[in-house]
């Protein structure tokens, strides 16, 4: 069958950027296709920045940012957003922490007020801290301790691959560290990292640029100016000898394994990085991908296999060092060594023989769909743009990604595959303790 190459459509979101006198960077992305807006504030601090002895603190602090602020009592933030017909959340990542709302567009000024108020200062009290330590412990129990495969592999693989505390430690935190956290810790953390100069405000959707700009000046203009702290160097050398560990998961009924390989700097060397993003999809996107076809259907060695960039599945919003990950769940009695050998074999085959006719183009078309779909929601768009502004000063990159992904060549994908050697690999195996 001849290869029909589908044209990857371009999208161009108009983007406005400016910086307030206090150093707050602002991104505006108007789109009047629906009467809704998205507002996001992203602070340049994440799991990698938390101090030793305070694992989980960046995430705990994210919770504290919802506990009242200069002009708002506890519970007021939630009630004001939801009482305007909106939804909210926040999330803590390796390199940043985001806070966001999506609302009907008549609530734009309200959302700006709420974000500005907590940028001036959250209410950090002993009572709120103890309450949120309890809530976070329940979050960890739900997501990690009380379920099979909890934290696999995002919490269990970094300590195998990395040696330094910022990259290797548990970002959810130990109960001991969480319980030891103090209000003074929180005050220091806020002063240091939640500075106007360390933040990006991103607003998108049904808005008028001039009007939104005036509202942003009004609410954020007098947030006290504080500069961004110097960002520490988190780099670590690549692996030269394979690393592998295993642990028993008392609740897991079946074996699993995840492997990671370091990849080029996603920000500093984007052109070298992008082929790895495409490679992960060539390997694992759907029944026509190489590893699914081989491992699931031909060999029946795994029940599922997935591949992605970044420990939190965040290809375009993480800084160096990061990794390409492959993870598999195995049938009862499955052979992990065999799975790892087969992956090596398939990577060799890809590096040596290249791709089949149309294999790259169809993968790129599918990636374009995923990228476009994520940006249809105004909130998805403002969040991505905020981080692209923060880490790259380039929010408009969002609209260019489908095209850039489509320009990755077969040679680049082969070369990327050739670097995923066993000696550069870190793996972690889950031994099922819950098999019945």
């Amino acid at each position, binding site marked *: 069958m001849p290869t029909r190459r589908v044209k990857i459509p371009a999208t161009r979101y108009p983007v406005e950027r400016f910086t307030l006198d206090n150093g707050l960077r602002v991104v505006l992305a108007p789109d009047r296709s629906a009467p809704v807006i998205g507002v996001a504030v992203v602070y340049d601090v994440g799991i990698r920045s938390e101090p030793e002895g305070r694992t989980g603190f960046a995430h705990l602090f994210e919770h504290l940012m919802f506990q009242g602020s200069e002009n708002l009592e506890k519970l007021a933030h939630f009630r004001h957003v939801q009482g*305007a017909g909106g939804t909210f959340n926040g999330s803590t990542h390796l390199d940043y922490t985001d806070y966001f709302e*999506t609302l009907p567009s008549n609530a734009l000024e309200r959302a700006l007020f709420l974000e500005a108020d907590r940028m001036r200062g959250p209410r950090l009290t002993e009572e709120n801290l103890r309450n949120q330590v309890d809530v976070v412990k*329940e979050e960890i129990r739900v997501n990690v301790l009380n379920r099979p495969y909890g934290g696999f592999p995002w919490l269990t693989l970094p300590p195998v691959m990395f040696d330094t505390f910022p990259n290797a430690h548990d970002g959810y935190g130990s109960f001991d560290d969480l319980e030891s956290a103090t209000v003074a810790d929180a005050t220091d953390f806020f002063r240091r990292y939640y500075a106007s100069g360390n933040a990006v405000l991103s607003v998108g959707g049904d808005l008028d640029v001039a009007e939104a700009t005036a509202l942003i000046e009004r609410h954020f203009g007098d947030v006290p100016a504080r500069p961004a702290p110097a960002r520490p160097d988190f780099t670590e050398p690549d692996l030269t000898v394979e690393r592998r560990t295993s642990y028993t998961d008392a609740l897991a009924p079946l074996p699993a394994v995840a492997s990671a390989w370091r990849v080029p700097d996603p920000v500093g060397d984007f052109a070298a990085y992008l082929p790895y993003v495409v490679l992960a999809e060539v390997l694992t996107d759907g*029944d026509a991908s190489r590893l699914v076809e081989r491992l699931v259907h031909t060999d029946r060695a795994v029940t599922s296999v997935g591949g992605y960039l970044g420990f939190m599945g965040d290809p375009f919003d993480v800084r160096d060092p990061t990794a390409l990950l492959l993870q598999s769940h195995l049938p009862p009695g499955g052979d992990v060594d065999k799975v790892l050998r087969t992956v090596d074999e398939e990577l060799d085959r890809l590096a040596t023989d290249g791709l089949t006719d149309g294999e790259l183009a*169809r993968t790129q078309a599918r990636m374009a769909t995923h990228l476009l779909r994520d940006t249809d*929601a105004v909130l998805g768009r403002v969040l991505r743009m905020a981080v692209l502004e923060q880490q790259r000063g380039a929010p408009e990159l969002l609209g260019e990604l489908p095209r850039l992904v489509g320009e990755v060549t077969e040679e680049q994908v082969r070369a990327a595959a050739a670097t995923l050697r066993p000696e550069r690999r870190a793996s972690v195996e889950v031994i099922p303790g819950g098999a019945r």
Partner: protein
Amino acid sequence: MSAPGPRSLPPLGPTRRLKLPRQAERTLDNGLTVIVVRRPAVPLVELRLWIPFGRAHLARGHLLAQTILSGTETMSSVQIAAELQKIGGGLAAGLDPDRLMFSGTGLATGLDRMLEILAEVLTGASYPAEWVGVERDRLVDGIQVARSQPAHLARTALLKRIYGRHPYAVQTPDPEQVRAVRPGALRSLHAQRVRPAGAVLVLVGDVRPERALDAAEKALGGWQGDGHRGDLPPAPPLAPGPLLLVDRPGSVQSSLRVALPAVPRTHPEHAALQLANLIFGGYFSSRWVENIREDKGYTYGPHSLVEHSVAGSVLVAAAEVATEVTGPALLETTYELGRLATVPPRPEELEQARQYALGTLQLGVSTQAGLASVVSAYAGSGLRLDFLPEHESRLAKASAEDVAEAAARYLAPARAVTVVLGDAERITPSLAALTPIETVPVPS
């Protein structure tokens, strides 16, 4: 710099009215209804197709959903996936107790091809023995993993407790039943049930509605055969009784589930019930969340939701709470339900819930995927998108009395069916202080 005085919350601007997107609908000669909605924001199209599938054999139904894309006379599974990828597309099939559901997304320019491939699968899925074998093992493994998850185990126990002998009572097949399914049984089930009559196809995206209807008719007009409807009896009313405690030794949390009666979307009391549910536990700024999370720190993500199925609706409140506070968490839950069922909510509480319901209605239809889900779910209740403004006006009109009445009728703790999954040895004493308990072991 002098400290500024207190700042006040800016008022909301004028409400922008909900504008319905352009849409078109056609029922084909074979009985398939096609609904197309235009939202050109990104150059994609969302596809949803559901086929009535009530009363289908559970293990065969689940394996059919997992293998229907595994090949046809002319295409292998890999070819189907690759052909879809070429147009940036993908299709997945799933099963619930009412329907077989396909969902997918692709580049809008590939719509014709996506429909062509879908049609080929619907009319010619061949269930190749080798692939069925692989997928059968994967389904068994998946069931085993699900059974190690507390949320799944709690759900399973709750469904059984709610539905008794109704077909909704068991929604996950036994591995042994799955292992017994042969390709021939899948082909028979397909021939009997994968039929256009009564099915609904929804397309949403950067498409021209009339042109998309034509494309759907061209691709799917040849899909023939009368459907076997598989009508379900109405779900039985909830039968309150002792709290069902499912013992999961060593559990570090307890999974608390409370089921309450509810009404379908079209019922005159539905809007008032929705508002009452929001005030109780249906959003973050609800009494239940503010109490057991923000005040007491017992839990991370409690939520309550009205679930609609063809044979009935039910309200389910769910929370994962720390083992040591399981009794106190149930106490607060019962308290909040009882308080709302017996004391009318304050006006500002109602207005806040109302604004949330109205606003999230707009947010829900502000994306292609959101629109597709709403249109497909509405069609499942026999409704169309024009019900959205109708529902909006019902929400706007519901009075405090309406909401108080709905709360008294549907949220009364005396009507609740409660299931707790947790470590019985540690949680029995405090639960037993509150209510009679019946304890069963976790199913193996």
